[in-house]
């Protein structure tokens, strides 16, 4: 089997379906007509391939199956959230009636048991929905385990707790292709690294968000991680890393572009705000360009979103007080149209390059 993962398998199935639809269209338009023999050979090849893929992965062969899969993913996500909340409130309801030893045993035991159950379900659940659901509960139990140890034994809060949480979330995410757990792990890592960077200046870790520059190192690492380590086998993992990398970089810049006085930089707040406004525009544009160049729609869309937010924030600063509101919104509308025109031109240029065989 040449397929390296469910994601690649699903892409192949989608291509086969698109090929068959296009072939029908071409035959209908009398452009291409395969002989019965050729058609049979193609069908047999596709059928064998689909059966092989189905035997290895829980893939959607039709559009209806795909729609149902989306519904199942949503149900699995909501179910996991609700069950995790249920575990939390269940413990809250009864922990006051338990001795300390019982509390420790139940909290540690719940982490271990839910984790083992996740692994066992993972071996039987080809679709992965139940595994992801139980996996999220295992992660919630582990977070609850350590957080409530802090409450029970009056432990000083520490950012070190974020590391094992991230480790378990990512271990489950990579083992069972669970993107929601990957996001949970990424958020823990963002918080941990930003907190550590913050503590270098002597601040208490929990205040890491008050100096937005703390987020820059982890943002850069997240964006480039999928380029250093291939994530082809995992559905949407590379996308999550890049999107979170961009958000973790540009959101703090947006904050600093408006409140320069919270920066580490020992210069005038006005210069800092101006600098981060320019940096925000340049980097948003760079992400759009890089996304188009690499064919990464998620990078393009995230870049565009931040570019527009930076632009509108500036418009608000400059004109909200001085312009009549109809004129202000008219300018916003005209700028949106200008963006459309520019993106369309970019699209045409891209199409021309594609036709000429250039990237």
């Amino acid at each position, binding site marked *: 089997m040449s397929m390296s993962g469910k994601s690649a398998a699903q892409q192949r199935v989608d291509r086969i379906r698109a090929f068959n639809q296009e072939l029908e269209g071409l035959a209908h338009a009398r452009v291409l007509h395969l002989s019965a023999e050729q058609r049979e050979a193609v069908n047999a090849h596709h059928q064998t391939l689909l059966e092989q893929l189905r035997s290895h992965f829980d893939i959607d062969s039709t559009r209806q199956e795909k729609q149902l899969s989306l519904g199942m993913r949503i149900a699995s996500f909501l179910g996991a959230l609700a069950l995790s909340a249920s575990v939390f409130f269940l413990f809250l309801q009864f922990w006051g009636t338990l*001795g*300390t030893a019982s509390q420790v045993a139940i909290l540690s035991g719940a982490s271990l048991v839910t984790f083992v159950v996740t692994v066992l379900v993972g071996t039987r659940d080809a679709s992965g929905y139940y595994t992801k659901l139980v996996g999220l509960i295992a992660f919630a139990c582990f977070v609850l385990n350590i957080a409530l140890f802090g409450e029970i034994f009056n432990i000083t809060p520490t950012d070190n707790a974020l590391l094992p949480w991230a480790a378990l979330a990512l271990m489950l995410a990579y083992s069972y292709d669970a993107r929601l757990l990957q996001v949970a792990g990424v958020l823990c890592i963002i918080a941990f690294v930003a907190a550590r960077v*913050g503590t270098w200046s002597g601040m208490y870790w929990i205040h890491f968000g008050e100096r937005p520059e703390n987020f820059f190192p982890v943002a850069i690492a997240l964006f480039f991680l999928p380029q250093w380590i291939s994530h082809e086998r995992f559905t949407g993992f590379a996308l999550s890393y890049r999107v979170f990398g961009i958000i973790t970089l540009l959101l703090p810049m947006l904050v600093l572009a408006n409140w320069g006085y919270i920066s580490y930089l020992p210069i005038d707040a006005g210069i800092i705000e101006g600098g981060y406004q320019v940096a925000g525009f340049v980097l948003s544009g760079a992400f759009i360009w890089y996304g188009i160049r690499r064919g990464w729609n998620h990078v393009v869309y995230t870049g565009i979103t931040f570019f527009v937010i930076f632009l509108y924030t500036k418009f608000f600063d400059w004109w909200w007080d001085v312009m009549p509101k109809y004129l202000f919104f008219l300018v916003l509308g005209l700028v949106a149209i200008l963006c459309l025109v520019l993106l369309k031109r970019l699209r045409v240029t891209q199409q021309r390059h594609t036709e000429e065989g250039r990237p």
Partner: protein
Amino acid sequence: MKLADKLPAGQWLVLGLGIALIVVTNVVALGGVAYNRAGQPEAVVTLSERELGMPYRYGMLRENTGIQLHLNCRIEDNPSYTYGYSDCSGIPEWFDRDKLIELGFGLRSESEADTDRRSYRSELPRPVYVVLEFDGPAYERAVVRAERDLAERLDLMVSNPGKAQFQSAAKQAQKTLDDERQHSSRLFVIDAGQDKSALQAKYTTTGRYIVMRALVRPLLRDTEQGEQWIGFVSGLLIDSINVPVQYHSIFEQFDTVRVSDNPGGLAPRYEVQVAVGRRAEPWIQTVRKL
């Protein structure tokens, strides 16, 4: 079929690593607790409901059956002292520029810092050790202040007969003094440092001092002498203490009204012996109903 037959080799690795991660994390967390509580506690103090308040129960927390007592400690503010204010935050008189530098804050001179930059005007909080004094000189000064305030108000009332605002002010001052004597916390933050041992060596009276960790930050404040750096205590890192289940029955008899909130004759209802260990983390040793 045995489990060994069901699990592929890769899954055994995941299982092993995951269990190891959970076990090691639990052992490290509990090891820290054991280390904190090993041997003799570094300090033991007996506090009452005035210093350890009943928890508020609101919203979804109504379902919480655990009990955590809130540590009410106070700052001797100067000049804006507030009676009974007990969230462990404020600007103590002793917390000046020299103390800030001793705690590791690299302060700029006031003239250099005189810009529009908030980062100059208030650096982010840092964790330090603070000394909490129970029922000591700081509390005595608070009572004296309240007595003096009452005396001044009574004088004003006598010299302004029939004027309601003076009667009301005197009545309020009497209530404040009553609160100070019967209800307000007697636990005060009186010093801070980076070296826990040095603080423990300086404050040695048994049963009066405990050293815990708190957050502090410098603030640039306008004073009569111009702008000056002053220290601000933001709060304790551990501000509530969990009650072991064997003492829950004592608290379940009480409603959740705090003695500090409802001083209408309500006297402290319990006494708690609190120990502080090697990591400056507290725990409850015993609880006694009064």
